[in-house]
């Protein structure tokens, strides 16, 4: 399961960051790391991007960018 499939309110734990290149580096810099818990807060009114809480702050990213991030649902 990847991060773009989480529903608002669901919390997942990141198991793998499959992205490569600049996308991967950017995600790492923003704290999207393996083992991190991520909660999906909202989906934008037009269906994309999504808003998540990670490392105690709010991050938004497009679903396409979230697709490469594998998660397991914990709540």
């Amino acid at each position, binding site marked *: 399961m990847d991060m773009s499939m989480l529903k608002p309110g669901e919390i997942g734990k990141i198991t793998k*960051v499959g992205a490569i290149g*600049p*996308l*991967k*580096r*950017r*995600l*790492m*810099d*923003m*704290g999207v*790391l*393996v083992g991190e818990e991520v909660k999906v*807060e*909202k*989906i*934008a*009114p*037009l*269906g*994309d*991007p999504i*808003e998540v809480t990670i*490392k*105690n*702050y*709010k*991050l*938004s*990213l*497009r679903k396409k*960018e979230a697709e490469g991030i594998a998660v397991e649902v914990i709540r």
Partner: protein
Amino acid sequence: MSVQTVGSQEVRAITVAVAGNPNAGKSTLINAIAGTRLHVGNWPGVTVEKKEAVFEYGGRKIKLVDLPGTYSLSPYTQEEIIARDYLVHEKPEVIIDVVDATNLERNLYLTVQLVELDIPMIIALNIHDEAEKKGYRIDAKAMERMLGVRVIPTVATKELGLADLLKAIVELADNPAGHLPKRLHYGEDIESAAQAVSAKIIDGSPSLTGKYPARWLAYKLLESDDHVLRETTVDNSGFLEEATRHLRKAHGDDIESIMADARYAQASGVTHEVLKKPEFRKTEVTEKIDGIVLNRFLGIPIFFAAMWLVFKFTFDVSAPFAEWIHTMTDGPFKRWVAVMLGFIHAPPWTVSLATDGVIAGVGFVIVFVPVIFAMMFFITFLEGSGYMARAAFVMDRAMHAMGLHGKSFIPMLLGFGCNVPAVYATRTLENPRDKALTALLIPLMSCGARLPVYVVFIGAFFPSHAGTILWSLYVMGIVLAVVMGIIFKRTLFRGESPLFIMELPPYRLPSFKSLMIHTWEKGKHFLIKAGTYIFAVSILVWFLLNLPWGVENKKDSYLGKTGQIIAPVLAPLGFGNWEASSSLISGLIAKEIVVGTMGEIYVQKAKEKKETPTLSEDLKEIGTSFGDAARESLANVFSTFGIASISSEESAEETGERASLRTVIKGQFTPLSAYAFITFVLLYMPCVVVAIAMRQEFGTWKWFGVAFVYQMALAWVVAFAIYQGGRLLGIG
């Protein structure tokens, strides 16, 4: 220290680099320290803003350099490269790291990277009040011990902690060796690999050791950082492989990730040690606001309401002042100069050059000042308050479809008022590609200056369908922007679209001082830089219009002659005469001038001598009309309907002129060619001020060049299709 002592210390300024995450309050902090001494420019070669301030403190000269806000020093964005290059190559004496106390862990990730540089550092633990309000307790002393840096709690918006900060700068600069940050330990495997790399550098390329911070360089080489490898020309083929063998065996091949993990481990370690949070987490104000503002159903209506307000405030508040400036320069100033020149018996052409060239040029520049100031003010407010990120979040899907970014919406919207501030507003976009594409599409938004042209033609040919025809032009501009956006995305801007990954910062009220300084600096920048160009161009146009000197017939002026040359090209569009062509050329200054030129060419204006007001009458007029402008501006804030910049009243004389112009063009155009003509006016090249704005924002004429070429082609093709298509269908 006494000011009299003139040592080398006294003369040389202490260079302080200010680093920090975006939204950590870095700008506010710098504004609070430096105030009006702030100098805003650009980093060399790029269009990223550079702020600097030199001031004295306790007899010492301090130079603050504001680095672009970044989340990291990995060279992912232009901003990161600038910040990194400055820190590594310019070697500032002290780094101030502005850290958002409410978001410690992610902010400390950058701090950890800054620590690697071995430069004395001060952490400004900013937004400290908000953290306290949340019940956070941060042990600054423990933080100092763990990182080996000075930690000073600050609240930039309230100017708290600044004196301590300044004092610390001097202390650290005076004894750098005693204030080096701690060497953070990234774990046995990484450290031993780094040591192996360092040993290789000392052996293989000793010249690098003094040039780069040793530890930083070793880490970067470990990560195989492209930028650093290219710059140092270190041959990494053999030894990196060897140095990292154990590391890769133990942790996997992705050393970049291993390093990021190690740095984050440090950031989390410090955070857990120094931060005590309350047990129960309250729902934060930001979350409550977002619950409404980003709501599935309310999100978009609220967004449009907010945009409507921004548009209205930007143009309605500034319009009366622009009008006032225009009236002043056009009336009293011209009269005074003419009288003075007449006094010294200057030849008539000098009077014309001074009034129609110089004063008109100056007036033309300053007419833009109110709208630029107003736009900068609201854009800065949107960014500082945190709503800009939400606007991007709400609109991104729609904008992304045409290759743009969610933040592109606001510049595009402002384009309907005036393309010039719209182009300047593209600075809210971080990525150069997003920025360029947005600026290219802005001229397709039908600006207020094109309206007078539409009004004359619609009044003459389509009085009964005025609304529909006018509406069709605006819609055509939008539709073509979508089409061109998609075309550009597949051609000129092919390849991966820039990432969206963006922080949604907490809502905050920007400090008024910071807002004013920012607005003022931007406005000043426009006045000086753009003003010079615009002024030069308007002088040039005066020569074009008036030379050869003494032409009676406009047809024989350079403008008229150029018009005659171009006319055949426009013939297939239905308006291939020199009059229409010349008017279009003059529209390059500003599109509304098309109407003025047509008036001059078509209607033989009988120049009546009006009674010249006296000096005192003029002065009184200037004063009272400024009062009127201010009142009108204020009234516009409250009035909810009507766009003032469009509905400004015309004098009876002007309406009379327009009426006779309408009669004349009825004989020159058919309804079909008239529609083709206004379509052409909508689409053909951006005006000169937009060109200058693009040059200023991008540091190159390239994007204006692209806009010029594609818009000319687009205007011709669309007008051709309308005229010839209409004829085939038997219209006209």
